[in-house]
């Protein structure tokens, strides 16, 4: 009886001790950082267990959710963008053909309130697309938009647009092929614009819609006229001037 009472008392005391301890440490949180450092190539190789695609899908979901787990949410401006780019490159090493991390780069992290950080993302896209151009050319369209409209960096937008126009894949819409011409026109390089559009017309005149082909011919003629010094009012206003 006495032993039973002692054991029961000890059990109750232990349980109450746990309750008190749990209450005491309920405010303790593990150290938390928005974006952890990237793993080394050796660590990645070991973690993959021979299946890099699986590790890619795990890590890309992590990257998507970094900063917004465990009851936290993080301002986009508080992300360390060079480290975000490091993570994107890690994902490239696991699956260079996937689009999920490219979408994060061009349609998720770009919503940072600190526009200077966009340069890291644009540079990443510019360097990454040549690694898998057949699958990733479309992200250059996003990069052109970001460079032109958010960073107001027309020379850089032109560089990206020319890079996009240099590709020729069956699933590319015609506007992607023409982008170099349009951006050249915006920067005042009318001869260059005409040259690019001529190349597109020569390659795709047969499969372009009739209206599209007429537009391209008209564009080339206009650009050649402007390159020769003709004033602007002699042509149809093809594009509105930039703000």
């Amino acid at each position, binding site marked *: 009886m006495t032993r039973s009472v002692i054991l029961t008392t000890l059990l109750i005391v232990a349980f109450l001790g746990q309750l008190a301890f749990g209450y005491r440490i309920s405010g303790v949180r593990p150290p938390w950082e928005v974006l952890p450092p990237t793993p080394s190539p050796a660590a990645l190789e070991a973690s993959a*267990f*021979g299946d890099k695609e699986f590790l890619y899908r795990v890590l890309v979901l992590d990257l998507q959710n970094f900063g917004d787990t465990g009851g936290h949410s993080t301002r986009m401006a508080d992300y360390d963008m060079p480290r975000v780019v490091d993570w994107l490159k890690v994902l490239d090493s696991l699956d260079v053909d996937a689009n*999920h991390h490219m979408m994060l780069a061009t349609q998720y992290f770009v919503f940072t309130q600190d526009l200077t950080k966009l340069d890291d993302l644009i540079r990443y896209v510019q360097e990454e697309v040549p690694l898998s151009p057949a699958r990733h050319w479309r992200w250059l369209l996003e990069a052109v938009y970001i460079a032109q409209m958010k960073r107001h960096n027309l020379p850089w937008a032109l560089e990206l647009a020319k890079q996009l126009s240099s590709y020729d894949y069956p699933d590319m819409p015609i506007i992607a092929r023409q982008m170099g011409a349009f951006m050249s026109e915006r920067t005042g390089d009318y001869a260059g614009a005409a040259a690019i559009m001529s190349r597109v017309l020569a390659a795709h005149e047969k499969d372009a819609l009739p209206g599209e082909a007429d537009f391209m011919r008209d564009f080339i003629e206009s650009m050649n006229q402007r390159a020769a010094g003709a004033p602007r009012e002699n042509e149809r206003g093809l594009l509105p001037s930039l703000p």
Partner: protein
Amino acid sequence: MIPTIRFVLVTALRDRLFASLFGLLAVTIGISVFLGGGAIMESREMAVVYAAGGARVFVMLGLIVFTAFHVERLYDTREIEAILARAISRESFVVSYWTGLAVIGILLVLPVAVAVFTLGLSVMGAVYWSVSIVLEALMLVAFVLFCALTMERAIPTIFAGVGFYVLARLVSFLLGIVLHGRRSGVNEVINPIFKFISFIVPRLDLAGQTRWLVYGVETNTSFLGLIAAQAAIYVPLLLLATIFDLRRKNF
């Protein structure tokens, strides 16, 4: 031989291996589809990769645990002596036992194959993946059967099986260290050891590539022939080793 194979299958049914593992696989696939829905892009790719990668591990662990405990029970109840006392050679016993476990492995891979066919984006990729997983299961059950019949106890068998599986999937990582890592100091001794290990451990890192399920079978990643050749060598090797060890035992 047929009665022994049937015995293994009946034991699996009795232990509710199929019911429990099918349930676990269904949960894994369900969670994978759920997680895939959380991705802002390529949801289907994510779902099929998670489902395939997760289910593969559970199937292999299930085979290891079942084989280990089943053989341990054979020794504990002395059923193995009763079986070998009949007109069945030890060679026939080992081969028929492995065949029974192989059939179980194939039956466990079937629902996973159905899932990857449904969720996947490439039919040929799903075929390659499923076949490679079956081959992986055949090699793994041969190894675990060898350990189980040798060690006679479930716990060390499970540790050996899991360790072997992990090592077999890490072979490319080890080879990478040997080829590109440091070559001085203690690595002068370790590197040749790891290289030798890579010669005797099957290359399970080449099997079950979930990339096949997403992008189909690309020329530079179609390792199915290699895996089939590996299984054709490794399974007889392990079965012979098992027979050799069983013949030395006195029941």
